[in-house]
């Protein structure tokens, strides 16, 4: 991972059209501003992880597999 030090008010650029600015830093965390083309998807990583995890959970055992899957769960 590339690690860059930035002070409040300083920015960095990703490619030609994405700008990330460090707006404020506090004990609670950092406030980050992002300028990017409208079509760029920007998600908190936890949300993406939750989406993927929900999709995995929704695939659940098939009806015929439920008993076997639960036997595995219940040991």
């Amino acid at each position: 991972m590339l690690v860059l030090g930035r002070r409040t008010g300083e920015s960095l650029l990703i490619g030609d059209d994405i700008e990330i600015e460090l707006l404020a830093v506090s004990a609670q965390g950092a406030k980050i501003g992002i300028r990017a083309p409208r079509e760029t998807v920007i998600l908190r990583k936890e949300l993406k992880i939750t989406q993927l995890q929900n999709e995995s959970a929704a695939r659940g055992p098939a009806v015929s597999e439920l008993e076997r899957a639960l036997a595995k769960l219940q040991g």
Partner: protein
Amino acid sequence: MSCVQTKYFGLLEYREDAVFEFPGGLPAFENEQRFVLIESPRYGPLVFLQSLETSSLCFLALPIQVLDRNYRLAMGSEDLKTLGLDSKRQPELGNEVVVLGLVSVQEDEPATANLMAPLVMNLKNRRALQAIREDSLYSHQHPIEQRGMEGGAC
């Protein structure tokens, strides 16, 4: 009484006041906004969250205390407001809210539960959401300890 075709239990009757409303759905399932909780002594403490929109969508879940008896909620004030809860404090588990961890059971992999983004369901107004934590205290793939499944401390 209304009826729903469920994924695992055939046709089930439910009362409207048993429905949980997820105003924003769940991440990746934003259109799924109405669910009923199915409990069966046969499978306890496991519970089933059946979608009322899609018969084939039924999540498996465990009460959060069964997964980690010391679990501490850390809901943001926006999430608390969405559920109509006091936004200055965390709700009481079991009393004000039911909190569940969604379970993933995949072929050839150990079963896990998502403790990073628990489902929080307000028992008073039946509103619910998936509360994604902003800290990193809990895993989204928490291994389910089989010992913890015994007894069914709901």
